[in-house]
């Protein structure tokens, strides 16, 4: 394969060279257990503490409010179930949205089986939650609002500051799954009134299998993984020292030149959107025109199916993703695309490109050129397109 264009940075990212370099010593020489009191143990402890400070600084938190986990899914599960069970005496109601990641949705469904009630807020055609509906949903039994910062499929960024304000005024904890937002958007947990926030390192050029849950001081939450006294008795398990160091370094790099990075991504993103919509008919762009992640592009290409698109792109050395149910062999296409009102058959033709640090303008050109050919070929096979051409 001559050319390889990775445009699925929302799925995962490669670990950056500088990140891996900082991690390396912790596999071999500096392997001490951070709970041990001898020299190499203390060195590991110091590395974790430093990482905690580095992470805290980025989101304007206190170091002691940063807890390391095994990734975004664990952080989401911990935040939601941990807060729910710890505040059961206060109430049993949780508010979330219909377009959350499965880690949030399935944690909420689990709680529904355990005596909790969950309100799933609607979103508008752009994927933005309805703030009025949110306000009206809050009762005196509401203990948690969990709404994602930015959506992983359509890239829509929520009005987090407003949500935080509403939550604070009503005295309800506010958790946000910032797995997709972090590294792309400035986040100040105080300004935004965020009480809990999830991240996952592999989404911002750090390693897979390590994440963070930010827990504001004073928030009542149960531990989720019980055992040793790590993470101030709140998250047991020998710490993934190399991973934690990598997470911190990756996060720092992401915020080092955020503006420049975003400018480049927005330029490439908008070019991709413009050229594809110009060159292919019956294409729509999902998500919000402005309030979207700098690297996210989500198309619905009518009369073709997502998996077929992905396989064809793969044959041409292009990595992308789709919200089609056929990707997973399940019946319903992406709950996000349905929630913004796409009909099933159009959701099936959805295609997501997420741009990242290593993409170039040539990549975009190559993708456009390839996609035009692929769509043409697939539409020739499609009985639906035939009908359209014939004006049926």
């Amino acid at each position, binding site marked *: 394969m001559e050319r390889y264009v990775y445009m699925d940075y929302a799925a995962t990212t490669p670990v950056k060279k500088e990140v891996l370099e900082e991690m390396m010593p912790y596999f071999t020489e500096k392997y001490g257990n951070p709970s041990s009191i001898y020299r190499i143990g203390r060195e590991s402890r110091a590395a974790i503490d430093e990482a905690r400070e580095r992470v805290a600084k980025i989101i304007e938190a206190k170091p002691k409010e940063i807890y390391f986990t095994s990734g975004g899914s664990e952080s989401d599960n911990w935040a939601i179930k941990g807060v729910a069970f710890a505040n059961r005496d206060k109430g049993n109601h949780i508010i979330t949205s219909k377009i959350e990641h499965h880690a949030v949705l399935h944690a909420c469904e689990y709680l529904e089986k355990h005596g909790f009630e969950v309100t799933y807020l609607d979103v508008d055609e752009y994927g933005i939650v309805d703030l009025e509906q949110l306000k009206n949903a809050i009762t005196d039994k509401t203990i948690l609002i969990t709404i994602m910062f930015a959506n992983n499929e359509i890239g829509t960024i929520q009005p987090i500051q407003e949500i935080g304000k509403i939550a604070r005024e009503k005295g309800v904890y506010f958790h946000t799954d910032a797995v997709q937002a972090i590294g792309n958007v400035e986040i100040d947990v105080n300004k935004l009134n965020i009480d809990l926030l999830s991240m996952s390192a592999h989404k911002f050029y750090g390693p897979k299998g390590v994440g963070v849950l930010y827990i504001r001081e004073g928030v009542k939450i149960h531990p989720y993984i019980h055992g040793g006294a790590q993470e101030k008795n709140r998250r047991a398990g020998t710490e993934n020292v190399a991973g934690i160091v990598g997470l911190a370094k990756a996060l720092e790099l992401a915020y080092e030149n955020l503006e420049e990075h975003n400018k480049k991504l927005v330029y490439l993103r908008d070019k991709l959107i413009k050229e594809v919509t110009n060159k292919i008919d019956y294409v729509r762009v999902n998500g919000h025109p402005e309030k979207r992640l700098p690297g996210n592009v989500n198309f619905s290409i009518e009369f073709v199916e997502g998996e077929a698109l992905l396989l064809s792109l793969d044959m041409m050395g292009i990595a992308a993703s789709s919200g089609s149910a056929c990707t997973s*062999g399940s019946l319903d296409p992406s709950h996000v695309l349905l929630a913004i009102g796409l009909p099933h*058959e159009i959701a*099936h033709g959805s295609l997501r490109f997420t741009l990242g640090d290593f993409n170039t303008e040539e990549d975009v050109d190559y993708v456009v050129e390839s996609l035009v050919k692929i769509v043409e070929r697939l539409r020739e*096979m499609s*009985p639906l397109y*035939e009908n359209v051409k014939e004006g049926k």
Partner: protein
Amino acid sequence: MYSEKVMDHFMNPRNVGEIEDADGVGQVGNPKCGDIMKIYLKIEDGIIVDVKFKTFGCGSAIASSSMATELIKGKSIEEAVKLTNKAVAEALDGLPPVKMHCSVLAEQAIKAALLDYAKKNNVTIEGLEDFNPDEDPHEH
């Protein structure tokens, strides 16, 4: 995920298109579920002399259509009726379990086209008595 054969039939599908004066046309599936398969048959003296397909669906659905048309081309109606989705999947060197239903679609589309032929020509085809083309083949 997919065998080389599946990918070959997906990338270079055989018998794509339509037959203008087809003797039988069958369409199954539902765009809502992400897949529609349409089969056109040209039949002379009980033999399928030509077959074409159009498919809106995943890689496995396209490959299954292509393989299914290859398997019945030149065969008698009796043989075509007996084509099972399993045979299609086997001829493709297997399909992932979650994708088996896509090959069911191919079997159904052929049966639907044969049924159409039978109706148009007022004949009965053994093996199609209980076939209902509107039944949802999905066992997602």
